[in-house]
């Protein structure tokens, strides 16, 4: 039998002006999100680069946890990978009162077939009329395009414009 891929992990680092929560793996019924809820009143920054997937029960558990973060606590999400962006676009209230500051988009080059996940700042996209800024291919320099429906993928940017 094939070995299961690494499951959920959550790590908390306390900084002077904020708490940094780093999550990775699969958010499902085995994911314990309690450490996020137990934080104090300092701003919380949630780093999600390592999250590979969220299953349906994980969505429910996630939303329960996010709703328990006090509304007065600043909450932001950074380095959100495509599976998280998909949830933001599909499930209303997925981020609670938090805001998504940066995210990855799957970029592809029609010329040389290079595929990368490129990090973007939400604010930059907002300033660009709700669109991704031009991204040159790291291999051939031609402009890359998002391997998704850009309008659909960036729904969360426009929803908060």
């Amino acid at each position: 039998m094939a070995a299961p891929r690494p499951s959920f992990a959550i790590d908390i680092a306390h900084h002077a002006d904020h708490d940094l929560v780093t999550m990775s793996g699969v958010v499902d019924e085995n994911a314990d999100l309690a450490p996020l809820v137990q934080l104090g009143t300092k701003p919380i920054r949630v780093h999600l680069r390592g999250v590979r997937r969220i299953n349906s029960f994980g969505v429910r558990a996630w939303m329960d946890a996010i709703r328990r973060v006090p509304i007065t606590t600043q909450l932001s999400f950074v380095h959100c990978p495509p599976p998280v962006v998909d949830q933001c676009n599909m499930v209303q209230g997925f981020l609670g009162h938090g805001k998504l500051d940066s995210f990855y988009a799957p970029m592809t080059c029609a010329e040389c077939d290079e595929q990368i996940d490129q990090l973007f700042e939400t604010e930059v996209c907002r300033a660009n009329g709700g669109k991704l800024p031009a991204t040159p291919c790291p291999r051939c320099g031609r402009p890359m395009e998002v391997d998704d429906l850009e309008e659909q993928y960036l729904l969360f940017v426009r929803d908060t414009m």
Partner: protein
Amino acid sequence: MRGKRILFFDPDPRARRVAERALAATGSIVKSAIDVEDLGKLLDEGAWDLLMLSFDPPLRDDPSWVERLSGYETRFPRTKMVLHATEPTEDYLPLLATRPWLRNIIAKNEDPLEPDELIITAEKLLRQDLFGLQKYLLWGVEPYRVEIRDSRLKQDYIAEVASYAQTLGCNERMVELVETVADELITNAIYNAPRSSDGEPKYARLSRREPVELADDEVGQLAFACDGDYIAIAQIDPFGALTQDTVVSYLNRCLVKGPEQISEASGGAGIGLYRVFQSLSKFIINVDPGKRTEVICLLDLRLTMKRFRQAAKSFHIFIADSASGAGGP
């Protein structure tokens, strides 16, 4: 199937050409309608074994046609009906709730129609030979099979399918889709499918954190295979409890963003089926009520994610004739 009568309608001559050739190859007698007037006349000729009709306007929106198709099903309950549509899934799914005769919808994308899907759908309905994911794959493909027995082993089951997808050279995003589909299907087989002797859901109200080990007569199965074009994942359970109403209501609830999206009524979130549907190209449910359910998911490996998102999805619910009384799908 030899001797069966099929009526096909599509105003697009290319689609008619593909369909006439494909359906005639099954040995059936095929007649094509070129426009709605022609279709009306042919329908008036009496009972057909199978209607395969374009569900784009006017048939979709014209109330007189909606009424006519409903009436046809009442008059000729043994006639099967398959519709093909260019509309996005989000447009036709809500219609399934009010039109029970809408059970089989073939997505029509850039190519006029896939002959394979026409033939498979027609033959399944006419022969009442519904089960088996091999029907959707090239001949000779042998599926891998995993028993679904214990919720604590779910990660191992998923790993089997994910590892298979990786072996096929799927990229990370496709592997994630495969894992998503497998995860939700396995959860469905363990928590939602099992019924007690009085037909009530046995574990559906349990939290998905509560471990469940299925008894021998409750064990489900995950089957997966690939023919180069599609990767197919199927979940089979020995209960046959899934109904068209359940599927349609779950899918439609999730289409509308809002507080109703996440269910508090069950032990899960009630969005598993929708997540599966969003991850695939063709969704097929075969039900022999009280005996067996098979949920088949086909993911098109030829498409980029962008094309995948743009493409319409096919949706089929096949219900065994013996159970429906009125003549089946």
